[in-house]
């Protein structure tokens, strides 16, 4: 099932980026990290700081594909009382201030399963969610959420990885919409970084199989690395580095110190500078 014409915010944003002749910056933060109030301040500031698309982590107790930084963020958010419903509330609040920046929820299946797939999709659309990335739903399980999401009009963004060979790639791309997220290393989030040549070759390989934009993530920590990726891909995704920056603004009790949101947004501005200056 492929979506012939996609009128969603994600497609519009990538079309606009293409028109500008530059790559986009996709930023990840975990919903409710370190608390809902602080998270809201960061979230609302992201577009002005240069985030072109926003990934919002739906916290889960057992994030088995994530490294220590995002695991800790998930636990902070859960301790602060974040739920799937409150995550959707955050998106709804964001949509009141920003009608254009795509918001993609990223997480694991069980919280959505517990919420109920149909009800979750309806509430997500009502809140202004544009896409879903669900780490533990490979194409083999498309009937669970991917196909219902596409039918409901929510983009389902799939991860392609270095272990996804040419034989498997068509299956991975088949029901993918919005963009393809290329995981540049075999590993967990926030670990090692891939080398530029390998990323460039991987993006080219994906482009031979799909017309969708390709975003690259995992292991991008600095504006320079973001710029390197922006030279070869349609977008660079930064997650662990932002979350780590946020964690650096917590006091000994895990509470946000004054100025945390501004500091995180400052870092996002640096990353955006890297991405925007990449193709001059």
């Amino acid at each position, binding site marked *: 099932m492929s979506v012939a014409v996609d009128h969603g915010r994600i497609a519009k944003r990538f079309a606009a980026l293409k028109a500008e002749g530059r790559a986009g910056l996709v930023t990840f933060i975990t919903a409710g990290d370190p608390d809902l109030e602080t998270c809201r301040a960061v979230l609302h500031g992201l577009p002005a700081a240069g985030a072109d698309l926003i990934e919002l982590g739906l916290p889960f107790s057992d994030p088995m*594909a994530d490294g220590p930084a995002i695991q800790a963020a998930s636990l902070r958010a859960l301790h602060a009382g974040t739920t799937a419903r409150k995550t959707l509330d955050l998106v709804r609040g964001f949509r009141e201030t920003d009608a254009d920046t795509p918001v993609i929820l990223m997480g694991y299946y069980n919280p959505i399963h517990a919420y109920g797939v149909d009800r979750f999709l309806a509430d997500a659309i009502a809140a202004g969610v544009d896409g879903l990335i669900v780490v533990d739903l490979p194409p083999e399980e498309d009937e669970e959420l991917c196909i219902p999401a596409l039918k409901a009009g929510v983009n389902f963004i799939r991860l392609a990885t270095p272990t996804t060979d040419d034989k498997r790639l068509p299956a991975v791309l088949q029901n993918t919409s919005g963009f393809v997220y290329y995981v540049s290393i075999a590993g967990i989030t926030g670990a090692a970084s891939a080398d530029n040549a390998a990323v460039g070759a991987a993006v080219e390989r994906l482009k031979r199989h799909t017309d969708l934009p390709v975003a690259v993530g995992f292991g991008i920590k600095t504006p320079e690395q973001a710029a390197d990726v922006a030279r070869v891909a349609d977008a660079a995704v930064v997650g662990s580095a932002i979350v780590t920056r946020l964690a650096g603004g917590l006091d000994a009790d895990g509470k946000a110190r004054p100025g945390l949101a501004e500091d995180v947004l400052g870092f996002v501005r640096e990353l955006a500078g890297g991405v925007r200056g990449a193709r001059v």
Partner: protein
Amino acid sequence: MTRPNTYRSGPDERGHFGIYGGRFVAETLMPLILEVEKAYREARADPAFDGAIREHLKQYVGRPNPLYYAERLTEKLGGAKIYFKREELNHTGAHKINNCIGQILLARRMGKKRIIAETGAGQHGVATATVCALFDMPCVIYMGETDIARQQPNVFRMKLLGAEVVPVTSGARTLKDAMNEALRDWVTNVADTYYLIGTAAGPHPYPAMVRDFQSVIGDEVRVQMQELEGRLPDSLVACVGGGSNAIGLFHPFLDDPSVQMVAVEAAGHGIDKGPLAHAASITGGRPGVLHGNRTYLLQDEDGQILEGHSISAGLDYPGVGPEHSWLHDIGRVEYVSATDQETLDAFQLCARTEGIIPALESAHALAEIVKRAPKLPKDHLMVLCLSGRGDKDIFSVAQHLGVKL
């Protein structure tokens, strides 16, 4: 729900037992899962693979182990005739080794160079470290810090066997976190590493593969009972955490309608004491998706996984193998539970009447026998899977009994 023609044909080609099971893993792991599935399918069709397993089970593990008539316990309870399937007499002291022999032979067949595993109580870790020593393969065992503290003898045993034991400090620092960490290792070391899962759970093909390797338990019981009594047993009782010893005992009998099956979950302080007081995923949980499969899970309203409690570190996993979830829903197997206290009582009863110190895991099944056997006629043949020996548990039992060692 309609009754299927056979209960033994699952899973389907996508790894489903009814609505349970499946392959809920990250894309990076998916090609590996498919590789394991293909390799296992080919291995099963190869008589040499089966021959190698049988040889190792006989010469190294010491199978077949006895189906032992527990005469004193039978007299004491005054009802059903009780037999113990003596898995605790296996090399390494538990049923876990059956599966490890099968999987290490598969890993070698696949040309893998490095083995990783998770462990809770340490029995699977010890069994994995054992086969890795035997086959000279590097072995990394992930174990929660909390479990490391309460299972020191097994930690030392693994190290003696040459394994590296990595303390897991994420989450609640117990078995589920060890499994998360093992998955993180696997996703990072995809090329050379084989993940040797210890129970009949995880993504397809693990639940079916582990079941197949453990089915030697039930296969032997069938032959031995025929020799001893000239007929099938009337009931089978086993404990369930992930459920590998139970499915191994049950599976060969699923299509024998006269054979009743009872699986015993860990009720901890009591199922009525709230979701954090027990580890009974089926009795006290609901279906969800974790660690690669859909199954009954201990979870809150928002789908966050809860940390179960049991006196037995081998049972306090918040999930259960998917085939058990299916067998529960269709009603082929009865799922009950035993509390910590009932387990401690059965543990001591077994030690004093039979001279066997059972693992706390197996003592859960014993607790059910204590409740059930007296109400049954003397010609009722009941088989308990004595899945492991209790030496590893004497420290925690002493603590619960208020004894200082």
